[in-house]
């Protein structure tokens, strides 16, 4: 089951990357790893929340893509959310928004 989810997640990732002309497959793997382990140090490895809020699709429903993109790239001054822009390449924050919307960060990613 977990394998199927992984394959589906990977397929979705590949599809959305093609759509958005985002990061290549190797970099996607790195970004998913970062999402799980580094974003996960505050938002939880399964993105159910921690010091930072939960980032599951249902938690993000009311947030616009642009808004999420802004949060990732520039962070939230006055909170613990740092700007991730300096660690991301062009189009990568946008790809992460897509992935978060799909819930691909939860339990998926790369182990």
């Amino acid at each position, binding site marked *: 089951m977990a394998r199927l989810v992984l394959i589906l997640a990977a397929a979705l990732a590949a599809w959305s990357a093609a759509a958005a002309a985002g990061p290549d497959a190797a970099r996607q793997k790195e970004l998913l*790893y970062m999402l*799980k*382990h*580094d974003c*996960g*140090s*505050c938002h*939880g*490895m*399964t993105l*159910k*929340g*921690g*010091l930072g809020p939960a980032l599951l699709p249902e938690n993000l429903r009311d947030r616009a893509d642009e808004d999420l993109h802004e949060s990732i790239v520039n*962070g939230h001054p*006055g909170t*613990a959310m*740092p*700007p*991730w822009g*300096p*660690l991301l390449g062009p189009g990568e924050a946008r790809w992460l928004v897509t992935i978060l919307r799909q819930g691909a960060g939860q339990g998926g990613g790369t*182990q």
Partner: protein
Amino acid sequence: MTSRWKALLVTLVLSLACAGGAGAAEPMVRGTGDLGIVIERAAGTVLVVDTTARAILSRVEGLGDLSHASAVFSRDERYAYVFGRDGGLTKVDILSGKVVKRVVQSGNSIGGAISQDGRLVAVSNYKPGGVKIFDAGTLDLVADIPADYGAGDPSKVVGLVDAPGHKFVFSLWDGGEIWMVDMTDPNSPVTTKFEDIGIQPYDALISGDGRYYIAGLFGEDGMALLDLWHPEAGVKRVLDGYGRGEQKLPVYKMPHLEGWAIADGHAFVPAVGRHEVLVISLGTWQEVARIPVHGQPVFVMARPDGRQVWVNFALPANDTVQVIDVPSRRIVKTLTPGKGVLHMEFTPRGEEVWVSVRDRDKIIVYDTARIEPVTELPADKPSGIFFTARAHRIGL
């Protein structure tokens, strides 16, 4: 050798192997003072390790989400209480390598502490924010202390430690307060609150003698100090505005504070958002030095004898460990264990240190005198390493 003898030998070897296999289920007859656990954060498992043999004894499964986890030990050093991200509190028998009891006591927790007498285990929670206190034997709930500070949801709680006098002390991330709970009578906890201690305390440490509780602040430059010998004197600000006028760097991982960081009459603490370790004189609480380091420090840990301080770092410098010589306050060695160095733990008297390297799926054991690797052990995305010697240290 006759075939008959061969058969006998095979039987003997097999029965020995079976006895060895059963050893993981039946409690071993041995001491536990040189044992410990390693959190495998992605798999939700812990390894029971032997620091004398430098070996893995067993793997314990079923501890839930351990993406942020820590542990304390019973004072007989047989049981580990593991605090998981999913609010799970799990009591592990390290001799049998089994989960004895597990309760999911909140939606989201961050850490815990064990009381002076070893009878109570306290857990600090993010959601709902507060502290819950359990019977260490049964894990039955003894006290529930929501961190209500008069504004909206209860505050997330950080920096929970035990203190002498059957106390627990902790800080309110959202509330900017320090609370001290006296559990002398477990049925009627007495809470003393210290308000306006600073913006966003992110973690705290208590000195090894149990006297000074120091919370680090994320929302401003400085730390909040409570002298538990004189709580009536209130909380005092130390290192106030240590980085005034300097541009802070983005913080990709919250620093941690632990009681280990006190050496040679000084506290060595991470500077938030800076590539520096700050050195504060105990007693006067003045900054006496800033040691430039490779990245933003996460753990700043003194070897038990206080002669060295080992430092690991936040992303993007989390592949490195630096060793500071305490008397000269100079970096004497820079190690590159690999990406994702998450934690370090010294053996009880500090001749070796175990370092978890998440992205390489291994633990590297270093000799601290030569500062050279001794051996490596495989582990699945290892994070926190906790040795049983913590059982007898205040605040750990």
